[in-house]
């Protein structure tokens, strides 16, 4: 992934790695704590029959699971300080199903020079294995050090 630096300019593109939403990882995410009696919880993310009863053809990955991929990317770009001052807006524009492969990305939209760093506004998103954008939005964060 290309790094974000205090020299990065609008238009700079960053792409994260690929993540496959396997049924096992979906159960780990949406099934409740492993030690819970009766694990996993039955819901559209963990149980095919339940998903079908809601009109879905496959288990549907929780939006927060792949939203987590762009948040991971923000932490990689800005560092853990982002958890103290970062913002993110995400729209879930398509469903993500089991075994889909999701790739997060970000593009610098704006930058604002501060006394001790740069505040960036990013356009963010996630694409699936067909190159279709499934999540779109924006984020802000500050890179310290000039």
């Amino acid at each position, binding site marked *: 992934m290309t790094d974000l630096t205090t020299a990065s300019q609008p238009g700079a593109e960053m792409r994260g790695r690929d*993540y496959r939403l396997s049924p096992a990882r979906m159960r780990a995410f*949406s099934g409740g*704590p492993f030690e819970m009696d009766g694990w996993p919880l039955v819901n559209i993310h963990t149980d095919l029959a339940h998903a079908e*009863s809601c009109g879905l053809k496959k288990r549907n990955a929780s939006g927060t699971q792949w*939203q987590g991929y762009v948040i991971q990317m923000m*932490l990689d770009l800005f560092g853990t300080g982002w958890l103290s001052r970062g913002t993110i807006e995400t729209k879930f524009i398509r469903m993500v199903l089991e075994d889909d492969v999701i790739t997060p990305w970000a593009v610098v939209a704006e930058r604002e020079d501060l006394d001790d760093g740069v505040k960036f506004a990013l356009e963010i998103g996630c694409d699936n294995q067909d190159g279709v954008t499934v999540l779109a939005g924006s984020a802000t964060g500050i890179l310290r050090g000039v």
Partner: protein
Amino acid sequence: MSERKVATDLAVGESYAPYSFHVTPDLNEQYCYAEEDYDSRYRQGDSGDPPLVHPALILNMSNRTRSPSFYMPEGHSVLHAKDIIEFISPAYVGKKLNVTWTVCERYKRRGRDFMVIDCRVIDEDGRDIFRRFSHNTHIKGGEA
């Protein structure tokens, strides 16, 4: 409010029952696996602080479906449409986190009813972790 009420029936200003959970190292590791994210920040503390809680764990535990009062009829489910999140402080493994949800807006779009939930996560020491505005709609069998 602690009684179970059909999730779609809450009016603006009403709240789901709050939820508290303890972030153990095992639970954090479970979410690192789920997220394919094995960064050391989730296993080792920095500068004397405990390890960080994986943000996706907090996101998932702050979905309103976690509320003890959340209830949807069989065959119905929630579709998550949009989130606006302000991260305020990191959360640390070993702490209890408290989550509250209040309906702050309802609107219709493309024939669907949407609810906006104002969600706050605060740790056991009273530190704000994040504030999240989630826009959700609902599906029932055959609709998706």
